[in-house]
């Protein structure tokens, strides 16, 4: 994050259940409406499958499952955000994606450590913009299966 513009971070805001998350626009390739997803067997359960993204077979991750939020039916507002991380192209299923905003750097704080919750390290920081609370994601961590297993183990 340090190398980004001095003052603000331009980010795409999306929604999962009733919380809002942010991904820096540089990492976002496109936002797609729901496409046909082909299930890939024997993969982590948050990997929904693969889609045909303009001729490229792209893996899709269900962020609800990834974050341990209960599943819900896909609706009209469900979107797939295509992100680029370390030269991989991956799609993230979110409940809705609707905004691009500038977040002032000094509005970003490290994630609060609250006793009794799982310390999810894919949250890089929390930003308060007006009355909204935005969680900034660390996409590398989102994709790694390492802490996902730990999370599952913790929750039993």
């Amino acid at each position, binding site marked *: 994050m340090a190398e980004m513009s001095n003052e603000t971070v331009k980010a795409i805001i999306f929604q999962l259940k009733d919380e809002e998350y942010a991904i820096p626009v540089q990492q976002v390739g496109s936002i797609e409406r729901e496409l*046909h997803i*082909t*299930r*890939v*067997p*024997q*993969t982590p359960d948050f*990997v929904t*499958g*693969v*889609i*045909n993204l*303009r*001729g*490229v*077979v*792209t*893996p899709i991750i269900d962020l609800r499952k990834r974050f341990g939020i209960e599943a819900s039916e896909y609706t009209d507002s469900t979107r797939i955000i295509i992100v680029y991380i370390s*030269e*991989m*192209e*991956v799609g993230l299923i979110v409940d809705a994606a609707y905004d691009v905003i500038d977040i002032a750097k000094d509005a970003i704080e490290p994630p609060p450590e609250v006793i009794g919750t799982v310390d999810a390290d894919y949250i890089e920081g929390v930003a308060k913009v007006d009355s909204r609370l935005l969680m900034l994601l660390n996409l590398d961590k989102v*994709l790694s299966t390492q802490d996902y297993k730990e999370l599952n183990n913790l929750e039993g």
Partner: protein
Amino acid sequence: MMEMNEYLEVFIEESKEHIQSLNDQLLILEKEPTNMDTVSEIFRSAHTLKGMSATMGYQDLANLTHKMENVLDAVRNHKLVITSDILDVVLDAVDQLEAMVVDIASGGDGTRDVESLVAQLNAIETGEHQEVDKSSKTSSKPVKNNDSSFEKLDQFEWAILQQSEEKGFQNQEIHIRLNENCLLKAARVYMVFEVLEQVGEVIKANPSVQELEEENFELDFTVLLVTKESADDVKKRILKVSEIEDVSINLFELGVSDDVSEKVDEGQDKATEVTATAEKTAKKPNNGVINNKTIRVNIDRLDALMNLFEELVIDRGRLEQISANLKHGELQETVERMTRISGDLQNIILNMRMVPIEQVFNRFPRMVRQLTKDLGKQVNLEIVGAETELDRTVIDEIGDPLVHLIRNALDHGVETPNEREAKGKPAEGKLLLNAFHSGNHVFIEISDDGAGISREKIVKKAISNGVITQEQANTLSDKQVFQLIMASGFSTAETISDISGRGVGLDVVKNTIESLGGNITIESEFGKGSVFSIQLPLTLSIISVLLIEVEKEKYAIPLSSIIETAIVSKSDILNAHNKKVIDFRGKVVPLISLKEVFDVPGEQVEEEFYSIVIIRKGDKMAGLIVDTFIGQQEVVLKSLGDYLKDVFAISGATILGDGQVALIVDTNSLIK
């Protein structure tokens, strides 16, 4: 820095090409030591390489090439005759060059200790090498001798000189020396020629006119002039050009000059040969330019083009559907046209990814030469069908298996010259590398006329290794027995050598080829030789599959691994050790439920009839239980990407006509 890198890439690519060309041409030269065409070709490659590496600042590379160039120059000027020993040193030098380029490519500075090689090359160049040919001495003498710089005249030139003599012209050999301080040598040469053309005709120049134009000479040059003017007049005219130090004119007499007449008397054939090569060399650069009208394109870009094109194909499918529904004449016509054009386009795009197998084959002559020397064998390698084209992806993978098979053939196949003669075969063995297209496949055959494979030996070994039982051995066909040598941990060679064979290897070859969707078979006649035949798909990017359905999911099974499909009634399914098996043409074939393997959601329903796809991996078979067969289709193989690599029993994905993704089943991992 970025720009330098860009140059570096080009430099490395081109260096590799030149090194390959050096290797090729040197081997040709070994067979035809007098082929001056080849020498010129080698010289050109070396020269270019030297120039490039000097520009890029790789001094060692440039130095070594320079030395090599000197030796080649001596050969070219008939001061040196190529021998096997000289060739060894030169090939060594080429190896070093290659190592340097590889070093540079992997980020090194391309430095290498080449002193001893340079010394060897120097020795050869200065004639210390034992093998300097006597005749070359005599022919090199006149070069230094002013009396005749033109010891070699081609037939045509000879004829002109003879004619002119008959018609009362003089043939003058004019030796011109430029002033040491002359700056624009080429300009002076031009002026001299200008003068000479006024009084007669210049038949030949030494150095050649081209070299003179390029200032590729010191201060002296000699021309052969046909004129009616007297020598004195010509001299005076030439001296009018400034910066001319000295002019000496001798009459060039045909027939009197021993050297020339002898050369011609030796036989007209030789003279024609020289002409022919001279003409060829002169024309070659032009031809080269025409033939090499290519540009380098990154394979990624071709992939991107392919991806876009597939998108187009999918939309084309939709358009066809829409126009069929609307039944609008003009629309239908347009869509049909578009379909045809895009079909052509598809062929072109696929063809762009095709590379001649030459790229793999061209390193073999060198390898065979070295190996036969090491093994003390005599083998003549023949390559047929090097122009056969294969998809780039296959080309990249097929090199190592072929190397292994060739090593195998040389080591275990072809016998030593003594053994061969004892058997009444010619001392020189034959190794044939043959590539050809057939249907949707490319075949590569490696055949030798060596010892062949002994069935008894293999059977004995296989039984002692516990690979097969005696009863099995009796029922196996020769082909099946030969296949055994490609089972892992199997080696029939009695002596283990460095060249090949430690029992690992042939099984790796087999696995590699199978992973490419191909297969390998062996035919052999004991005492007469063996043929290893590899069958490969034309391309890895487009494969034929059988589409099947399990519940609502579609999967593609490569046709190359399918034996056949069958519908089996429930009563025909037997149980063996808690496993479902069927009796398929007398063989017990285990059944695998794709639904279970892939955890396909849906209820387990007991059915009366099962749809089964019989697949194979080598000799082993299995039956895949599916719900429905959809049909056969050509599909484009796509990777699942880095994030989902190593998914069990899935080798990739493909995009179907409706735009959906279907997974491709990796049948090899389903059979243990």
